[in-house]
């Protein structure tokens, strides 16, 4: 028995390492082949070059797609965080009938097949006579970002000590003053974390943008279009590598901020809860 007990954690930790390899290995091939001189991604590498990266800024369609992605990402992040703040505050601060079903509806896009969400929105937008553009993409991205924003913000708002606000009001601070000088500093890290998470999701999101955009491409749509041409693969890999690092960086900062927010309100959970 003791043998099993000693053996088990050892077996488990080697499984954990293998699992991490399984998670990371596929992703690592993108940067590796993006510096390969040959266009076909196979081992051994035929030589190391940065010229796929150097070509990127010289592609006008790519520059446009980058701008489009930035515009969509920033708008979607701001809108979904504002809507997320209202909802998360309401869920954590108040109790009322219908709270759980409403929360469930707001979180639903997280578990629905994206294609179905995308085509339903497409149908309504066409019925309403909205012409497809970056604006319709933003509307779609906000819907799928809100659940993530809610998760981050709820973990920042929960355990928020209401007596601090009450103390501020009792000491003569106005409602706005209390918000600006007591509430905001406590929740600011969670809000910034939500902005970063939503921006990253929007930057990487493909399906909804694919259905809801008109002629303007975002970065994932640009990549999708390039995938048809085998010769364009290294450029796509280089672009993908840059996007990968951008997501990685943004999410690391977001997670650090979320933890700081959770520590401030002495609460754990968030993305993992």
């Amino acid at each position, binding site marked *: 028995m003791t043998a099993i007990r000693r053996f088990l954690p050892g077996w488990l930790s080697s*499984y954990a390492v293998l699992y991490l390899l399984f998670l990371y290995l*596929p992703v690592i091939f993108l940067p590796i082949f993006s510096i390969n001189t040959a266009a076909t991604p196979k*081992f*051994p590498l035929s030589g190391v070059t940065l010229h796929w990266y150097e070509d990127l800024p010289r592609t006008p369609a790519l520059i446009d797609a980058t701008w489009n992605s930035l515009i969509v990402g920033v708008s979607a992040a701001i809108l979904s965080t504002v809507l997320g703040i209202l*909802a998360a505050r309401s869920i954590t601060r108040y109790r*009322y*009938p219908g709270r759980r079903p409403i929360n469930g509806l707001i979180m639903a896009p997280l578990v629905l097949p994206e294609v179905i969400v995308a085509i*339903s929105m497409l149908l309504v937008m066409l019925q309403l006579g909205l012409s497809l553009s970056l604006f319709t993409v933003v509307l779609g991205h906000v*819907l799928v970002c809100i659940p993530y924003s809610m998760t981050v913000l709820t973990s920042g708002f929960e355990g928020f000590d209401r007596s601090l606000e009450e103390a501020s009001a009792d000491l003569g601070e106005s409602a706005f003053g209390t918000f600006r000088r007591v509430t905001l500093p406590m929740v600011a890290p969670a809000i910034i974390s939500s902005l970063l998470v939503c921006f990253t999701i929007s930057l990487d999101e493909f399906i909804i943008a694919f259905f809801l955009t008109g002629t303007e491409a975002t970065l994932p749509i640009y990549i999708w279009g390039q995938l048809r041409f085998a010769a364009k693969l290294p450029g796509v890999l280089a672009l993908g590598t840059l996007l990968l690092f951008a997501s990685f960086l943004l999410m690391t900062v977001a997670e650090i901020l979320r933890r700081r927010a959770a520590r401030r309100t002495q609460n754990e959970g968030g993305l993992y809860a």
Partner: protein
Amino acid sequence: MTAAAEGSPPLRVAGSRRSPLLQSEAAQGFALISPTFVYALILLVLPILVVIAHSFWTQNYLTIDHTFTLENYRIALTEPIYRDLLWRSLYISLTVSLLTVALAYPIAYFISFHGGRHKSLWLFLITIPFWTSYLLRVMSWKVILGYNGVLNSGLMGLGIIQEPSDALLYNSTAVIITLTHAWATFAILPIFVSLEKVDRTLVEAATDLGDGPLRSFLRVTLPLSAPGVISAALIVMIPTVGDYVTPKLVGGKDGVMIANAIQAQFGKASNWPLGAALSVTTMIIVSLMAGATVLVFRALQRLAR
């Protein structure tokens, strides 16, 4: 919420000039959530209702005939091509969700029971790949499994195979591998959360009462973590049934799924009502399958005790 906090609002209402209704907890909370709620109503509930309505109509070249018909559902359920796609999608999403959960459980268990001080670092490491673009992750599998891909060139380099195999890419196995990788994080987190809630003293009690590690795991830890396992399975199953990118990029002819057919109806084929009926059918069938999965897991959970 404490009794004191619940008692305080009426006190303030008395001193306020505003109507008691607006000042009440419920009204304030509801007012605060309503913008987000209305957004979800307009961009999620209304669209789904519109899709359901369309599924009962008929496409008449460029216009839509609004007379009620079940013809689209007849086509969706009886035409061999859609029936096959639907079955394949269900088979793939069921396999992927079971596989993902089975692979994820040990790692969630490891982090929860043996993670020690590094618990949050482990969780962070596991979530990171999930935050990278889904499209890029699928693309990297295409690079790995392709005819000239990493796996083929690697196997040839090792002398295991003589010429590249085309059996790796463009079939449903490639779709299953890619989806299992893509949804791993989604399965780990719910299982981890439910394992964290398992009362460690119960495991100790089982050990003290003479259960070995395996028996105490099977009779205490596993049944208690069942809610996490069930939600992990559902979180993977429902979205994967409608996956579009993976079958399109690595599925080839044998890996096409229902979402590709739905997209075609809204694109080239331009038959919105049929596309709508296919979407509704998919949602209903995957919900039934999810319900059945929950029942099976619950039955297993009872058996384990």
